[in-house]
C-alpha cells in the first residue's frame, strides 16, 4: 500500500486545499476551558477571529504559543480515550522543554495534507498508528518552536544562543536574564522557521518514557469535557432515525400522523437511511419515533438466523480456501505425524458498544456546512459530507471533538453517521443546527459488527513433540471488501484483516497452510479493537496449549521451543511468565494460562489466573501483562491501554454475542448484549519491556491476548477446550 494509492482511493481534496489554522480566539477558548477546538457556546454559532493573533507563535500546524504563556498542541487525531491528545502533547512538550502545566490541547481541523496520518496518507487514525506516525513529526514541531524562542531571546539580550538554557517553559540567559515562552512568543514569531532541527538525545528526555499526566483527566472527571452529544445551539433540533429492523431493507411506506401529534415533534422526513424525525428536544425525538408506523420492504434484506449462517460457514471448513500462506508440504507432514490434533472454533458477531452512541451535529445553510463529531477518519468523513451536500471542501468545516469511545466503531469507510446527518440537513432544508443521535438500541441493532468466523485448525506433532504441520482454515465476511479500503487491504482474494495474526503465525513450523473463505452476508461488518487478531489470536494460541498438552510439554516451554528468531515474542513471554510466578503452585481451584501475540507491531504476552467454582463458573482474578511497544512514550498510558484492552477483550470473550433471528438482531441494550462490569475486572499488572525501538501501537494489542490466556487457564484446570464463543455458552468442569 502506498500513500498515493490511498489518496486516490478516497478521491480526496488535494493539496491546494488550504484550511485555516485555528484562530487565536479558538485557541484561547481551548486554553480557558480545557475544551476542544470548535466549541461554540449555546446561542453563539459563529466565531470571529479576534485581534492579537500576532502575539502568538505558530511555527507549524502543530502548536501555538500564546502571550498568556500557554502552549496549545493541535491534535491531528481523534482522542476516543486512547490518549492521543496526551501522547502528542508529550512529544511537543519534550522537545520544547515546556512545563506540562502550560500545555493545552485542541483538535485539528480537517486537512488531508497538513494533518495526514503518515501511515495512511490521509487524516485519520486506526490500527494503533496514532503515536507511531506522529513521533518524529510532533517532536520536530516542538523543537522548531524552541529554536525560534531561543533565537529571539538571543537577539533580545544580545547573547549567543548557545548560552541560553530552556527549562520547564522558561528561557534562562546569562546574567540573570530570563523570560517565559509567552513573553517571547510575539518576538519569536518574527524569526524564520528552521528548516532543520536537532532532536534531543533520548537520554535527555524529561517526559518521554517517564510520566506526563493525562491532559483530559480533570475535564472528563468533572463532566465538562464536551462530546458530540453535548453540543447545543440556539434553535437546534434533535433527530432520530427509524432504521429497518433487517439489514438491507428499505422503506415501503410510512405513516407519521401519530408521531407528528407528539408535542415538540417538528418534522418527519424520509431519508435514504429510513425515516428521520426532528424534534425540539431529545425526549420528543425518541418518543416520537416510537409512534412512527413504517412498512419495510424486506425483499433485499438479510433474513437468515446467525445459527444458519454459521452452519453454512462450517460446511466450508471442509473445502480448501484461498491460500494466505503456504510453506512446505502440509499433506506430507500429516502423513508422517506422530499425532494429529484438530479443533474447530466459532466466533460470534460483536458490537463495539462505545459508551457514547453514534451521533453527529450539523449546521447546513445550502452553501456551507459545519459538522461536529468524534471523527476518526476526518478525511473520509469530510469528503463524504462534501459529496452528499454537493459542496466544495472549503465550504465544509469538520470539527473533531472528544469521542466517548470507538474501539473501531467511529472509523467508518462509508462515513454513515456523517452521511445521514447531511442527508437529514439537506432534506429538512432549513439552516438550523441538527443533532442526530443514536439510542443504545440503535447502536446494538445497528450493525458494523466484528464478523462471525468459523475456524478449523489441524496440527501435526512429531515423536519429539515438535510442530511438524499446521493447517488453518478461516471462514468469514470481509471487512474491507466493498469499501474504499478494499484495494489497499484485499490482495489476491485475501482480506488481510481476516487472516492477520494467523498467516503470520510466529512459530517455526516447516509445513504450514493458512486458507481463507470469504463469504457474503447482508450484515455490515467493521474492525473491532484488534480486528483479525480478535479471533486469530484465540484460535492459534488456544491451539498451542492443546498441542503442548498432547506433547506433554509446559505451555511456556512449548512456545519458546517454537519461537525461532522471534526475540520480541520470547522477551514478552518470558517477562510475563516470570512476573506471574509461572510454575509456582497456586491455591486449589486456581489455574494459570498463558498466551502471546503480536498485533500492530507490538508484542504482548499475558498470564491469566482463573478461579474455578464448583458449579462450572469461574472468575478471572489476576492478569500479568508484558508488552513490547518499542519506546513507551507514556508508560502510564501504555499500562492504561493494556488494562482497558484486557477488560474489553475479556467482556466479549465471557459474554459478548450479537445474534440474528430471521435477520433481526435479538439484542437491544446492555441487558441482552452484556459487557464487562466492575465485579468481573481482574487485578492487572503491566510490565513494559525497556526499548529504544520506534514506538508502536498500544490501543489494540492488549485485547486479543486475554481470551486465549483465560481459555488456557480453564483448559489447564479442566481439560475443557474453549471452541465456541462466548465462554458463557458452556460450563468448565473437569471430566474427571
Amino acid at each position, binding site marked *: 500500500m502506498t500513500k498515493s494509492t490511498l489518496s486516490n482511493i478516497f478521491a480526496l481534496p488535494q493539496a491546494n486545499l488550504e484550511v485555516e489554522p485555528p484562530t487565536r480566539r479558538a485557541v484561547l477558548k481551548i486554553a480557558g476551558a480545557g475544551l476542544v477546538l470548535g466549541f461554540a457556546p449555546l446561542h453563539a454559532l459563529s466565531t470571529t477571529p479576534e485581534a492579537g493573533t500576532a502575539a502568538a507563535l505558530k511555527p507549524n500546524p502543530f502548536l501555538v504559543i500564546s502571550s498568556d504563556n500557554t502552549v496549545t498542541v493541535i491534535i491531528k487525531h481523534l482522542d476516543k*480515550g486512547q490518549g492521543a491528545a496526551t501522547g502528542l502533547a508529550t512529544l511537543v512538550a519534550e522537545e520544547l522543554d515546556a512545563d506540562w502545566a502550560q500545555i493545552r490541547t485542541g483538535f485539528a481541523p480537517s486537512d488531508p495534507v497538513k494533518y495526514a496520518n503518515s501511515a495512511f496518507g490521509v487524516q485519520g487514525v486506526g490500527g494503533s498508528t496514532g503515536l507511531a506516525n506522529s513521533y518524529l513529526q510532533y517532536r520536530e514541531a516542538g523543537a522548531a518552536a524552541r529554536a525560534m524562542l531561543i533565537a529571539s531571546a538571543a537577539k533580545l539580550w544580545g547573547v549567543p544562543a548557545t548560552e541560553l538554557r530552556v527549562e520547564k517553559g522558561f528561557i534562562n540567559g546569562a546574567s540573570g536574564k530570563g523570560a517565559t515562552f509567552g513573553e517571547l512568543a510575539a518576538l519569536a514569531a518574527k524569526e524564520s522557521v528552521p528548516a532543520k532541527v536537532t532532536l534531543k538525545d533520548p537520554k535527555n528526555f524529561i517526559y518521554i518514557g517517564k510520566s506526563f499526566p493525562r491532559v483530559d483527566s480533570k475535564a472528563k472527571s468533572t463532566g465538562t469535557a464536551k462530546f458530540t452529544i453535548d453540543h447545543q445551539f440556539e434553535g437546534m433540533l434533535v433527530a432520530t432515525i427509524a432504521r429497518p429492523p433487517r439489514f438491507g431493507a428499505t422503506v415501503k411506506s410510512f405513516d407519521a400522523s401519530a408521531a407528528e401529534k407528539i408535542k415538540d415533534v417538528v418534522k418527519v422526513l424520509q431519508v435514504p437511511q429510513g425515516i428521520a424525525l426532528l424534534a425540539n428536544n431529545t425526549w420528543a425525538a425518541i418518543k416520537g419515533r416510537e409512534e412512527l408506523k413504517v412498512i419495510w420492504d424486506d425483499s433485499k434484506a438479510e433474513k437468515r438466523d446467525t445459527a444458519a449462517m454459521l452452519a453454512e460457514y462450517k460446511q466450508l471448513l471442509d473445502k480448501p480456501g484461498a491460500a494466505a500462506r503456504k510453506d512446505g508440504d502440509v499433506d506430507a507432514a500429516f502423513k508422517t505425524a506422530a499425532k494429529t490434533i484438530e479443533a474447530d472454533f466459532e466466533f460470534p458477531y460483536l458490537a463495539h458498544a462505545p459508551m457514547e452512541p453514534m451521533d453527529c451535529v450539523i449546521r447546513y445553510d445550502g452553501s456551507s456546512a459545519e459538522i461536529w463529531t468524534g471523527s476518526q477518519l476526518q478525511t473520509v468523513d469530510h469528503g463524504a459530507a462534501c459529496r452528499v451536500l454537493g459542496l466544495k471542501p472549503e465550504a465544509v468545516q469538520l470539527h473533531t471533538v472528544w469521542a466517548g469511545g470507538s474501539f473501531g466503531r467511529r472509523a467508518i469507510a462509508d462515513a454513515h453517521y456523517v452521511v445521514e446527518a447531511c442527508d437529514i440537513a439537506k432534506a429538512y432544508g432549513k439552516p438550523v443546527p441538527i443533532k442526530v443521535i443514536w439510542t443504545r438500541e440503535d447502536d446494538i441493532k445497528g450493525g458494523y459488527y466484528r464478523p462471525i468466523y468459523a475456524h478449523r485448525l489441524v496440527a501435526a506433532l512429531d515423536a519429539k513433540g515438535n510442530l511438524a504441520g499446521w493447517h488453518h482454515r478461516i471462514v468469514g465476511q470481509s471487512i474491507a471488501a466493498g469499501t474504499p479500503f478494499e484495494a489497499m487491504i484485499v490482495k489476491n482474494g485475501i482480506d488481510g484483516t481476516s487472516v492477520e495474526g494467523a498467516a503470520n503465525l510466529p512459530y517455526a513450523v516447516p509445513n504450514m497452510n493458512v486458507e481463507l473463505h470469504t463469504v457474503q452476508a447482508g450484515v455490515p461488518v467493521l474492525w473491532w479493537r484488534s480486528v483479525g487478531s480478535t479471533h486469530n489470536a484465540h484460535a492459534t494460541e488456544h491451539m498451542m496449549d492443546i498441542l503442548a498438552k498432547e506433547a506433554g510439554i509446559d505451555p511456556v516451554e512449548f512456545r519458546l521451543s517454537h519461537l525461532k528468531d522471534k526475540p520480541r515474542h520470547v522477551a514478552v513471554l518470558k517477562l510475563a511468565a516470570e512476573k506471574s510466578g509461572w510454575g509456582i503452585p497456586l491455591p486449589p481451584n486456581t489455574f494459570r494460562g498463558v498466551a502471546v501475540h503480536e498485533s500492530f507491531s507490538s508484542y504482548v504476552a499475558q498470564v491469566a489466573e482463573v478461579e474455578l467454582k464448583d458449579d462450572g463458573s469461574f472468575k478471572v482474578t489476576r492478569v500479568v501483562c508484558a508488552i513490547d511497544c518499542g519506546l513507551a512514550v507514556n508508560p502510564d498510558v501504555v499500562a492504561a491501554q493494556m488494562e482497558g484492552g484486557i477488560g474489553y477483550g475479556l467482556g466479549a470473550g465471557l459474554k459478548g454475542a450479537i445474534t440474528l433471528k430471521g435477520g433481526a438482531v435479538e439484542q437491544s441494550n446492555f441487558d441482552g448484549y452484556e459487557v464487562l462490569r466492575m465485579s468481573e475486572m481482574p487485578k492487572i499488572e503491566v510490565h513494559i519491556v525497556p526499548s529504544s525501538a520506534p514506538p508502536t501501537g498500544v490501543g489494540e494489542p492488549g485485547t486479543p491476548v486475554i481470551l486465549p490466556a483465560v481459555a488456557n487457564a480453564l483448559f489447564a484446570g479442566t481439560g475443557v477446550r474453549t471452541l465456541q464463543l462466548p465462554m458463557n455458552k458452556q460450563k468448565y468442569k473437569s471430566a474427571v
Partner: protein
Amino acid sequence: MAITLTVNGTAQTFEGDPEMPLLWVLRDQFHMTGTKFGCGAGLCGACTVLFAGSPQRACQVTAKDAAGKEITTIEGLSGKVAEAVHKAWIAHDVVQCGYCQPGQVVSATALLTANAKPSDADIDAAMDGNICRCSTYHRIRTAIHTAAKTLEG
C-alpha cells in the same frame, strides 16, 4: 403545568412533558450536559445523579417524580468526599474516553459518603451498575481506595 426541580441547590422550572426523564430535562432544558446518556434503560449508570445523597439513574425518573427531590448532578458535586474522589481520579489518571466518568464519580461519591472505608466487595456492589467500556474499573477501584484513605485523614 410547570414543574419545579431543585438541582444543585437551585430551584428551576420546567414546563414540558412531565413524563420526560430527568436526564433529558437536565441536559436539554437546563443545559447541564455533564450527566450522560448511555442506555436510557437504567443499565449503564452514565446518567447517575444523587437524590439527597443517594444514587439514582436520571433516565429512569420522570420530571414529575423528580419534583421536590434534592438533586445533585456532576456539576454540583461538592464537599469533602467529592473533592477526595476528584483528586484521586486525577492522581490515578482514571479516565480514558471519559464518557461514563461523571456517572462513575457520582456513584463513587455516594459510596464513600455512605461507607467511609469500602472493601473490594463493597466497591463491586456499589459500582457494578456503572459500565465503562474502556474498562477503567481497575483504576476506579484504586482511586476509590485512595479517596477513602484521604478522607481518613
